[in-house]
Protein backbone atom coordinates (compact mmCIF):
# COMPACT_ATOMS: atom_id res chain seq x y z
CA UNK A 1 0.00 0.00 0.00
CA UNK A 2 1.25 3.49 -0.73
CA UNK A 3 1.49 6.44 1.61
CA UNK A 4 -1.67 7.98 0.24
CA UNK A 5 -3.66 4.92 1.28
CA UNK A 6 -2.44 5.00 4.88
CA UNK A 7 -3.34 8.66 5.12
CA UNK A 8 -6.81 7.84 3.85
CA UNK A 9 -7.10 5.02 6.43
CA UNK A 10 -6.16 7.43 9.17
CA UNK A 11 -8.58 10.09 8.00
CA UNK A 12 -11.37 7.58 7.72
CA UNK A 13 -10.78 6.34 11.26
CA UNK A 14 -10.59 9.90 12.56
CA UNK A 15 -13.83 10.59 10.70
CA UNK A 16 -12.25 13.39 8.74
CA UNK A 17 -13.27 12.46 5.21
CA UNK A 18 -15.93 14.42 3.36
CA UNK A 19 -19.13 12.48 2.82
CA UNK A 20 -18.21 11.88 -0.80
CA UNK A 21 -14.76 10.56 0.08
CA UNK A 22 -16.34 8.42 2.74
CA UNK A 23 -18.78 6.80 0.33
CA UNK A 24 -15.95 6.14 -2.07
CA UNK A 25 -13.85 4.66 0.69
CA UNK A 26 -16.61 2.32 1.82
CA UNK A 27 -17.29 1.22 -1.72
CA UNK A 28 -13.67 0.32 -2.13
CA UNK A 29 -13.78 -1.63 1.12
CA UNK A 30 -16.52 -3.78 -0.37
CA UNK A 31 -15.01 -4.26 -3.79
CA UNK A 32 -11.28 -4.37 -3.26
CA UNK A 33 -10.28 -7.34 -1.18
CA UNK A 34 -6.68 -6.34 -0.69
CA UNK A 35 -7.69 -2.83 0.32
CA UNK A 36 -10.13 -4.28 2.79
CA UNK A 37 -7.55 -6.61 4.27
CA UNK A 38 -5.00 -3.83 4.68
CA UNK A 39 -7.55 -1.57 6.28
CA UNK A 40 -8.65 -4.29 8.71
CA UNK A 41 -5.09 -4.79 9.86
CA UNK A 42 -4.54 -1.03 10.05
CA UNK A 43 -7.57 -0.72 12.27
CA UNK A 44 -6.48 -3.62 14.41
CA UNK A 45 -2.99 -2.17 14.80
CA UNK A 46 -4.48 1.16 15.83
CA UNK A 47 -6.63 -0.58 18.44
CA UNK A 48 -3.63 -2.48 19.70
CA UNK A 49 -1.59 0.70 20.16
CA UNK A 50 -4.50 2.55 21.67
CA UNK A 51 -4.92 -0.19 24.24
CA UNK A 52 -1.21 -0.64 24.88
CA UNK A 53 -0.71 3.01 25.75
CA UNK A 54 -4.01 3.75 27.45
CA UNK A 55 -3.97 5.00 31.01
CA UNK A 56 -6.42 2.30 31.96
CA UNK A 57 -4.03 -0.42 30.90
CA UNK A 58 -1.16 1.17 32.78
CA UNK A 59 -3.34 1.59 35.88
CA UNK A 60 -4.40 -2.03 35.65
CA UNK A 61 -0.86 -3.31 35.40
CA UNK A 62 0.24 -1.25 38.32
CA UNK A 63 -2.66 -2.30 40.49
CA UNK A 64 -2.15 -5.93 39.54
CA UNK A 65 1.50 -5.74 40.40
CA UNK A 66 0.85 -4.29 43.83
CA UNK A 67 -1.82 -6.89 44.65
CA UNK A 68 0.47 -9.62 43.39
CA UNK A 69 3.34 -8.35 45.52
CA UNK A 70 1.10 -8.12 48.55
CA UNK A 71 -0.05 -11.66 47.99
CA UNK A 72 3.38 -13.16 47.52
CA UNK A 73 5.00 -11.16 50.30
CA UNK A 74 2.52 -12.07 53.00
CA UNK A 75 2.85 -15.61 51.79
CA UNK A 76 6.60 -15.80 52.12
CA UNK A 77 6.61 -14.07 55.48
CA UNK A 78 4.10 -16.56 56.89
CA UNK A 79 6.21 -19.39 55.56
CA UNK A 80 9.36 -18.14 57.21
CA UNK A 81 7.44 -17.96 60.44
CA UNK A 82 6.39 -21.53 60.04
CA UNK A 83 9.93 -22.60 59.35
CA UNK A 84 11.04 -20.71 62.44
CA UNK A 85 8.70 -22.77 64.57
CA UNK A 86 10.33 -26.07 63.69
CA UNK A 87 12.63 -26.46 66.65
CA UNK A 88 13.49 -29.39 68.86
CA UNK A 89 10.32 -30.49 70.59
CA UNK A 90 10.82 -32.44 73.75
CA UNK A 91 8.26 -35.18 74.40
CA UNK A 92 6.90 -33.69 77.58
CA UNK A 93 5.98 -30.58 75.60
CA UNK A 94 3.26 -32.66 74.01
CA UNK A 95 1.63 -33.28 77.33
CA UNK A 96 1.67 -29.59 78.14
CA UNK A 97 0.43 -28.70 74.68
CA UNK A 98 -2.34 -31.29 74.87
CA UNK A 99 -3.62 -30.03 78.17
CA UNK A 100 -3.52 -26.46 76.93
CA UNK A 101 -5.63 -27.56 73.96
CA UNK A 102 -8.11 -29.31 76.23
CA UNK A 103 -8.43 -26.32 78.51
CA UNK A 104 -8.81 -23.94 75.60
CA UNK A 105 -11.33 -26.21 73.94
CA UNK A 106 -13.44 -26.28 77.07
CA UNK A 107 -13.18 -22.56 77.40
CA UNK A 108 -14.36 -22.12 73.83
CA UNK A 109 -17.24 -24.50 74.32
CA UNK A 110 -18.46 -22.47 77.21
CA UNK A 111 -18.22 -19.31 75.16
CA UNK A 112 -21.22 -20.10 73.03
CA UNK A 113 -22.29 -16.54 72.58
CA UNK A 114 -20.69 -15.21 69.41
CA UNK A 115 -20.59 -11.51 68.95
CA UNK A 116 -19.91 -8.98 66.26
CA UNK A 117 -16.34 -8.27 67.29
CA UNK A 118 -15.42 -11.90 66.51
CA UNK A 119 -16.16 -11.19 62.88
CA UNK A 120 -15.41 -7.58 62.12
CA UNK A 121 -12.10 -8.06 60.36
CA UNK A 122 -12.87 -6.21 57.15
CA UNK A 123 -11.08 -6.27 53.85
CA UNK A 124 -8.80 -3.35 53.11
CA UNK A 125 -10.42 -0.58 51.09
CA UNK A 126 -8.45 0.03 47.91
CA UNK A 127 -10.76 2.02 45.68
CA UNK A 128 -8.40 4.97 45.33
CA UNK A 129 -6.23 3.02 42.93
CA UNK A 130 -8.73 3.66 40.19
CA UNK A 131 -10.02 7.15 40.70
CA UNK A 132 -7.14 9.34 41.50
CA UNK A 133 -7.93 12.85 42.59
CA UNK A 134 -11.08 12.58 44.65
CA UNK A 135 -10.13 13.88 48.09
CA UNK A 136 -13.24 12.55 49.84
CA UNK A 137 -12.66 9.10 48.47
CA UNK A 138 -9.06 9.18 49.59
CA UNK A 139 -10.04 10.35 53.03
CA UNK A 140 -12.74 7.70 53.31
CA UNK A 141 -10.31 4.99 52.30
CA UNK A 142 -7.62 6.09 54.71
CA UNK A 143 -10.02 6.49 57.61
CA UNK A 144 -11.57 3.11 56.85
CA UNK A 145 -8.26 1.31 56.75
CA UNK A 146 -7.23 3.05 59.97
CA UNK A 147 -10.51 1.77 61.50
CA UNK A 148 -11.67 5.32 62.15
CA UNK A 149 -15.19 4.60 60.98
CA UNK A 150 -16.71 7.84 62.22
CA UNK A 151 -14.33 9.78 60.04
CA UNK A 152 -14.90 7.36 57.17
CA UNK A 153 -18.66 7.90 57.35
CA UNK A 154 -18.17 11.67 57.35
CA UNK A 155 -16.02 11.38 54.23
CA UNK A 156 -18.42 8.97 52.51
CA UNK A 157 -21.27 11.38 53.25
CA UNK A 158 -19.63 13.95 51.02
CA UNK A 159 -19.40 11.58 48.07
CA UNK A 160 -22.25 11.94 45.60
CA UNK A 161 -21.59 9.17 43.12
CA UNK A 162 -22.36 5.78 44.63
CA UNK A 163 -22.80 3.78 41.48
CA UNK A 164 -19.71 1.71 42.27
CA UNK A 165 -20.85 -1.30 44.33
CA UNK A 166 -17.50 -1.43 46.08
CA UNK A 167 -18.12 2.02 47.54
CA UNK A 168 -21.60 1.01 48.65
CA UNK A 169 -20.20 -1.97 50.52
CA UNK A 170 -17.49 -0.05 52.34
CA UNK A 171 -19.88 2.77 53.19
CA UNK A 172 -22.31 0.19 54.59
CA UNK A 173 -19.59 -1.43 56.72
CA UNK A 174 -18.61 1.96 58.13
CA UNK A 175 -22.27 2.64 58.92
CA UNK A 176 -22.60 -0.68 60.77
CA UNK A 177 -19.46 0.12 62.75
CA UNK A 178 -20.97 3.46 63.78
CA UNK A 179 -24.33 1.85 64.67
CA UNK A 180 -26.14 3.48 61.80
CA UNK A 181 -27.99 0.29 60.94
CA UNK A 182 -30.96 1.52 58.95
CA UNK A 183 -28.90 3.47 56.48
CA UNK A 184 -26.42 0.58 56.20
CA UNK A 185 -29.26 -1.75 55.36
CA UNK A 186 -30.40 0.54 52.54
CA UNK A 187 -27.05 0.12 50.81
CA UNK A 188 -26.79 -3.57 51.59
CA UNK A 189 -30.27 -4.28 50.22
CA UNK A 190 -29.37 -2.50 47.04
CA UNK A 191 -26.28 -4.68 46.68
CA UNK A 192 -28.25 -7.81 47.53
CA UNK A 193 -30.70 -7.09 44.77
CA UNK A 194 -27.94 -6.31 42.28
CA UNK A 195 -25.61 -8.62 40.45
CA UNK A 196 -22.20 -7.41 41.49
CA UNK A 197 -19.52 -9.57 43.12
CA UNK A 198 -20.56 -8.06 46.45
CA UNK A 199 -24.04 -9.53 46.32
CA UNK A 200 -23.40 -12.28 48.88
CA UNK A 201 -20.87 -10.25 50.82
CA UNK A 202 -23.70 -7.76 51.40
CA UNK A 203 -25.86 -10.55 52.82
CA UNK A 204 -23.03 -11.56 55.13
CA UNK A 205 -22.69 -8.00 56.38
CA UNK A 206 -26.44 -7.66 56.85
CA UNK A 207 -26.25 -10.74 59.07
CA UNK A 208 -23.36 -9.18 61.01
CA UNK A 209 -25.40 -6.02 61.41
CA UNK A 210 -28.20 -8.06 63.03
CA UNK A 211 -25.64 -9.81 65.21
CA UNK A 212 -24.32 -6.50 66.40
CA UNK A 213 -27.87 -5.40 67.22
CA UNK A 214 -28.37 -8.68 69.08
CA UNK A 215 -31.21 -9.72 66.75
CA UNK A 216 -30.30 -13.38 66.62
CA UNK A 217 -33.26 -14.75 64.72
CA UNK A 218 -32.88 -12.20 61.90
CA UNK A 219 -29.17 -12.89 61.87
CA UNK A 220 -29.74 -16.64 61.49
CA UNK A 221 -32.28 -16.35 58.70
CA UNK A 222 -30.02 -13.94 56.82
CA UNK A 223 -27.02 -16.26 57.17
CA UNK A 224 -29.07 -19.07 55.66
CA UNK A 225 -29.45 -17.04 52.49
CA UNK A 226 -25.73 -17.23 51.75
CA UNK A 227 -25.17 -19.88 49.05
CA UNK A 228 -22.49 -22.54 49.34
CA UNK A 229 -20.30 -21.10 46.62
CA UNK A 230 -20.06 -17.69 48.27
CA UNK A 231 -16.76 -16.56 49.72
CA UNK A 232 -18.24 -16.12 53.20
CA UNK A 233 -20.13 -19.38 53.27
CA UNK A 234 -17.80 -21.14 55.72
CA UNK A 235 -17.82 -18.25 58.14
CA UNK A 236 -21.60 -18.07 57.84
CA UNK A 237 -21.97 -21.76 58.70
CA UNK A 238 -19.65 -21.40 61.64
CA UNK A 239 -21.61 -18.46 62.98
CA UNK A 240 -24.89 -20.29 62.41
CA UNK A 241 -23.63 -23.25 64.44
CA UNK A 242 -22.56 -20.96 67.23
CA UNK A 243 -25.93 -19.28 67.30
CA UNK A 244 -27.91 -22.50 67.41
Amino acid at each position, binding site marked *: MNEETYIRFENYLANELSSEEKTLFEEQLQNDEQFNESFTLYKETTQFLEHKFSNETLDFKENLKSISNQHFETL*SSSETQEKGKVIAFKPWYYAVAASVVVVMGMWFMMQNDPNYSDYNQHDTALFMERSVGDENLKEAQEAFNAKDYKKAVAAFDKITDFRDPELQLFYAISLIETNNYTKAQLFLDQLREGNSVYKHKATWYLALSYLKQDQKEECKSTLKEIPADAEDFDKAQELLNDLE
Partner: protein
Amino acid sequence: MAEKNLHPDQLYIDGLVQNNSTVIQAIYKKFVPKVKNYIRMNSGDDDEAQDVIQEVLITIYNQAKTKGLQLSCPFDAYFFLLCKRRWLNELKKTSNKEVTLQDENVSIDESVQEMTFQTEVFDEKQSLFDEMFQKLGEKCQEVLKLSFITKTMEEVAAKLNVTYAYVRKKKSLCTGQLTEMIQQSNRYKSLKC
Protein backbone atom coordinates in the same frame (compact mmCIF):
# COMPACT_ATOMS: atom_id res chain seq x y z
CA MET B 1 -25.80 -16.25 20.64
CA ALA B 2 -22.73 -16.61 22.80
CA GLU B 3 -24.67 -14.97 25.62
CA LYS B 4 -26.59 -18.08 26.53
CA ASN B 5 -23.43 -20.01 27.40
CA LEU B 6 -22.03 -17.31 29.62
CA HIS B 7 -20.61 -18.81 32.81
CA PRO B 8 -21.37 -17.03 36.12
CA ASP B 9 -17.60 -16.76 36.64
CA GLN B 10 -17.71 -14.02 34.00
CA LEU B 11 -17.71 -11.75 37.05
CA TYR B 12 -13.96 -12.35 37.39
CA ILE B 13 -13.41 -11.27 33.80
CA ASP B 14 -15.58 -8.20 34.31
CA GLY B 15 -13.73 -7.41 37.53
CA LEU B 16 -10.39 -7.52 35.72
CA VAL B 17 -11.71 -5.25 32.97
CA GLN B 18 -12.93 -2.78 35.59
CA ASN B 19 -9.61 -3.05 37.44
CA ASN B 20 -11.59 -3.90 40.54
CA SER B 21 -9.14 -4.52 43.38
CA THR B 22 -11.50 -6.66 45.41
CA VAL B 23 -12.05 -9.01 42.49
CA ILE B 24 -8.34 -9.20 41.70
CA GLN B 25 -7.60 -9.95 45.34
CA ALA B 26 -10.28 -12.62 45.29
CA ILE B 27 -8.59 -14.21 42.27
CA TYR B 28 -5.31 -14.30 44.14
CA LYS B 29 -6.92 -15.75 47.20
CA LYS B 30 -8.99 -18.40 45.47
CA PHE B 31 -7.18 -19.47 42.34
CA VAL B 32 -3.53 -18.55 42.66
CA PRO B 33 -2.46 -21.07 45.34
CA LYS B 34 -3.23 -24.00 43.05
CA VAL B 35 -1.15 -22.54 40.22
CA LYS B 36 1.67 -21.80 42.59
CA ASN B 37 1.71 -25.36 43.85
CA TYR B 38 1.75 -26.70 40.35
CA ILE B 39 4.72 -24.54 39.35
CA ARG B 40 6.57 -25.44 42.52
CA MET B 41 6.04 -29.13 41.85
CA ASN B 42 7.38 -28.64 38.34
CA SER B 43 10.82 -27.13 38.85
CA GLY B 44 9.66 -23.57 39.48
CA ASP B 45 9.86 -21.20 42.41
CA ASP B 46 7.60 -18.50 43.80
CA ASP B 47 9.12 -15.71 41.73
CA GLU B 48 8.53 -17.61 38.54
CA ALA B 49 4.99 -18.43 39.61
CA GLN B 50 4.34 -14.80 40.36
CA ASP B 51 5.48 -13.76 36.87
CA VAL B 52 3.49 -16.43 35.05
CA ILE B 53 0.34 -15.54 36.95
CA GLN B 54 0.73 -11.83 36.29
CA GLU B 55 1.33 -12.38 32.59
CA VAL B 56 -1.72 -14.59 32.28
CA LEU B 57 -3.94 -12.08 34.07
CA ILE B 58 -2.66 -9.29 31.81
CA THR B 59 -3.41 -11.42 28.75
CA ILE B 60 -6.95 -12.09 29.95
CA TYR B 61 -7.36 -8.38 30.64
CA ASN B 62 -6.06 -7.45 27.19
CA GLN B 63 -8.33 -9.88 25.44
CA ALA B 64 -11.40 -8.93 27.46
CA LYS B 65 -10.76 -5.24 27.00
CA THR B 66 -10.07 -5.23 23.27
CA LYS B 67 -12.05 -8.17 21.94
CA GLY B 68 -14.57 -8.80 24.64
CA LEU B 69 -14.21 -12.14 26.39
CA GLN B 70 -17.21 -14.27 27.18
CA LEU B 71 -16.35 -17.00 29.58
CA SER B 72 -18.17 -20.24 28.82
CA CYS B 73 -16.39 -22.37 31.42
CA PRO B 74 -15.32 -22.05 35.08
CA PHE B 75 -12.66 -19.41 35.62
CA ASP B 76 -10.64 -21.76 37.80
CA ALA B 77 -10.05 -24.34 35.06
CA TYR B 78 -9.46 -21.75 32.36
CA PHE B 79 -6.99 -19.76 34.42
CA PHE B 80 -5.17 -22.83 35.64
CA LEU B 81 -4.74 -24.28 32.16
CA LEU B 82 -3.44 -20.97 30.81
CA CYS B 83 -0.88 -20.68 33.61
CA LYS B 84 0.13 -24.29 33.33
CA ARG B 85 0.70 -24.13 29.57
CA ARG B 86 2.57 -20.88 29.84
CA TRP B 87 4.82 -22.40 32.47
CA LEU B 88 5.48 -25.49 30.35
CA ASN B 89 6.45 -23.24 27.44
CA GLU B 90 8.72 -21.36 29.77
CA LEU B 91 10.36 -24.64 30.78
CA LYS B 92 10.83 -25.68 27.19
CA LYS B 93 12.64 -22.43 26.45
CA THR B 94 15.08 -22.94 29.28
CA SER B 95 15.35 -26.64 28.70
CA ASN B 96 18.21 -27.15 31.09
CA LYS B 97 15.55 -27.44 33.74
CA GLU B 98 14.36 -30.88 34.49
CA VAL B 99 10.68 -31.31 33.82
CA THR B 100 8.67 -33.62 36.00
CA LEU B 101 5.15 -33.49 34.74
CA GLN B 102 2.26 -34.04 37.06
CA ASP B 103 -1.35 -34.96 36.42
CA GLU B 104 -1.02 -35.06 32.66
CA ASN B 105 -3.78 -37.63 32.43
CA VAL B 106 -6.57 -35.46 33.72
CA SER B 107 -9.06 -34.94 30.93
CA ILE B 108 -9.90 -31.36 30.19
CA ASP B 109 -13.34 -30.10 29.44
CA GLU B 110 -13.88 -29.06 25.84
CA SER B 111 -15.13 -25.57 26.58
CA VAL B 112 -12.09 -24.96 28.79
CA GLN B 113 -9.82 -26.03 25.96
CA GLU B 114 -11.64 -23.85 23.49
CA MET B 115 -11.47 -20.78 25.75
CA THR B 116 -7.79 -21.40 26.45
CA PHE B 117 -7.04 -21.82 22.78
CA GLN B 118 -8.73 -18.53 21.89
CA THR B 119 -6.80 -16.69 24.55
CA GLU B 120 -3.50 -18.19 23.46
CA VAL B 121 -4.10 -17.22 19.83
CA PHE B 122 -4.98 -13.73 20.97
CA ASP B 123 -1.85 -13.54 23.08
CA GLU B 124 0.33 -14.83 20.28
CA LYS B 125 -0.96 -12.09 18.00
CA GLN B 126 -0.56 -9.47 20.69
CA SER B 127 3.06 -10.42 21.30
CA LEU B 128 3.76 -10.34 17.57
CA PHE B 129 2.38 -6.79 17.39
CA ASP B 130 4.52 -5.91 20.38
CA GLU B 131 7.65 -7.39 18.90
CA MET B 132 7.17 -5.54 15.61
CA PHE B 133 6.49 -2.29 17.40
CA GLN B 134 9.86 -2.65 19.13
CA LYS B 135 11.46 -3.09 15.72
CA LEU B 136 10.04 0.16 14.36
CA GLY B 137 12.38 3.11 14.05
CA GLU B 138 12.83 5.21 17.15
CA LYS B 139 11.09 8.23 15.66
CA CYS B 140 8.06 6.18 14.67
CA GLN B 141 7.83 4.62 18.11
CA GLU B 142 7.92 8.04 19.69
CA VAL B 143 5.28 9.56 17.42
CA LEU B 144 2.94 6.61 17.86
CA LYS B 145 3.38 6.42 21.59
CA LEU B 146 2.81 10.14 22.00
CA SER B 147 -0.19 10.20 19.74
CA PHE B 148 -1.90 7.57 21.85
CA ILE B 149 -1.06 8.87 25.29
CA THR B 150 -1.69 12.51 24.42
CA LYS B 151 -5.25 13.71 24.13
CA THR B 152 -5.08 15.63 20.86
CA MET B 153 -2.79 15.54 17.85
CA GLU B 154 -2.31 19.29 18.25
CA GLU B 155 -0.64 18.65 21.58
CA VAL B 156 1.54 15.95 20.06
CA ALA B 157 2.67 18.39 17.37
CA ALA B 158 3.49 20.98 20.00
CA LYS B 159 5.46 18.46 22.07
CA LEU B 160 7.50 17.36 19.08
CA ASN B 161 7.83 20.89 17.80
CA VAL B 162 6.47 20.05 14.34
CA THR B 163 3.31 20.98 12.48
CA TYR B 164 -0.04 19.31 12.98
CA ALA B 165 -0.14 18.16 9.36
CA TYR B 166 3.27 16.58 9.69
CA VAL B 167 2.43 14.66 12.82
CA ARG B 168 -0.84 13.38 11.32
CA LYS B 169 0.97 12.16 8.25
CA LYS B 170 3.77 10.63 10.29
CA LYS B 171 1.30 8.78 12.46
CA SER B 172 -0.46 7.17 9.51
CA LEU B 173 2.78 6.25 7.78
CA CYS B 174 4.26 4.73 10.91
CA THR B 175 1.11 2.73 11.58
CA GLY B 176 1.19 1.65 7.94
CA GLN B 177 4.79 0.58 8.26
CA LEU B 178 3.97 -1.40 11.37
CA THR B 179 1.12 -3.20 9.58
CA GLU B 180 3.48 -4.14 6.76
CA MET B 181 6.06 -5.55 9.15
CA ILE B 182 3.35 -7.57 10.85
CA GLN B 183 1.97 -8.81 7.57
CA GLN B 184 5.34 -9.93 6.28
CA SER B 185 6.31 -11.89 9.35
CA ASN B 186 6.04 -15.66 9.20
CA ARG B 187 4.33 -15.76 12.53
CA TYR B 188 1.49 -13.62 11.20
CA LYS B 189 0.96 -15.95 8.29
CA SER B 190 0.68 -18.94 10.58
CA LEU B 191 -1.71 -17.08 12.88
CA LYS B 192 -4.12 -16.06 10.20
CA CYS B 193 -7.12 -18.27 10.13
